[in-house]
């Protein structure tokens, strides 16, 4: 499995609401609602922790799901958010974008 790194984009608005996370892309104003698992991945997207480690540490350790299924779901989720500029994805560590 190739290492994949993810980082939260600065071009978003986000706020927790009732156990979920509201996120709006500044690029296209698409609104997302992240459930608890997706929120855990998004919050751990620091650009330096490989996605595989995030899945193991933040998803499998907390939710009852096998690692392969969790990683496949995480990749799909990451790809979807990356299309809207909400997450940055790279095969190299990513410098933080969050300072404005």
């Amino acid at each position, binding site marked *: 499995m190739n290492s994949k790194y993810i980082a939260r984009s*600065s*071009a*978003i*608005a*986000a*706020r*927790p*609401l*009732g156990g979920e996370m*509201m996120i*709006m892309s*500044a690029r296209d*104003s698409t*609104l*997302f*609602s992240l459930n608890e698992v997706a929120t855990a991945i998004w919050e751990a997207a620091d650009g330096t922790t490989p996605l595989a480690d995030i899945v193991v540490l933040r998803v499998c350790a907390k939710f009852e799901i096998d690692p392969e299924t969790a990683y496949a779901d995480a990749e799909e989720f990451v790809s979807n958010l990356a299309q809207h500029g909400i997450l940055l994805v790279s095969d190299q560590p990513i410098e933080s974008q*969050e*300072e*404005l």
Partner: protein
Amino acid sequence: MSLMHEFEKRARQLGIPLSVQLDITWHCNERCVHCYLDHDGVGEMSTAKIKDVIRQLAESGTFFLTVSGGEPLVRRDCFEILGYARSLKFNVKLKTNALKIGPTEAQRLRALGIEQVQISIYSHRAEVHDAITKVPGSLNRSLEAIRFLRAQEIKVSITDVLMSQNLSDAKAVRQLAQDLGVLFEVDPTVTPKLNGDHSIVKLGITGDQLQKVFHTEEFVGNVKEFCAPVPTVDAGVLDDSTCSAGITSCYISPTGDVYPCVQFPLPCGNLRTQSFSEIWRDSRPLREVRSIRVRDLHTCSKCAHIAYCTRCPGLAHMEGDLLGISTADCAKSAARVMDGEPS
């Protein structure tokens, strides 16, 4: 139900102030004839205090933050405030006349990730627009700023407040907005001043003119849908709250006063002496506003138009009765149907 409606519904259930308008100043470099503000106000909050308020709003769950004024960009710390709000991941809209936006400012707004910039344009003709703002050259400067913003791919919305002075130019303003690649909306209501002075209301358009506006596709989209037959009034309608003001949204003045809405001057507390959460949770006026249901409105609850009326509780309050009618909204409801007056 759209995701936005889901968020609104959840915020309502959880008592979260999802949307807040924060005026950082009432000072302005225009003097619009219909403005509801007193520009000579003193005692604005400091930069540090405003940042503290914004931090409190983030902690309270506010997602949509509209920064407005007066003219917010007359404050030298405006970009610092906007940057702080964006660092806390607010969805930020900026209401401005754009007179102080040049290429550099547009670039800075782009870098900050401002969601939208809303600018009032009253006419495509300088002699009409500038007569309303009382600033010669203001139309050209605002339009130039819109082009700078669009060059940065920032979403821009033009709002055209309709008055007898500029009504005949509204279609041309819409065309101008299309040419500039920006959103366009009309605002058919001139509201009283926040200090209770109703003298400016007479600048607004007449009932007949309003009816024509509401039956014009360029302004309302699908006229048949907009002027649809009046829905039946049922128990669900009567049990609804009357508006999101004070329920999932509120307004904060430059001096730190909290109101249910910018056009709802019911003082609920001041942020210099109380925390936002304390005011939001415990304010007696806010609790009263939240307790009002449509069935409590002594006149409107019996009106056939109530199911889709846009009755503004703030305007009703300014007319002297929180449970009474808002004359401007009665006129709007009447204008939206083909042949009817509110019962």
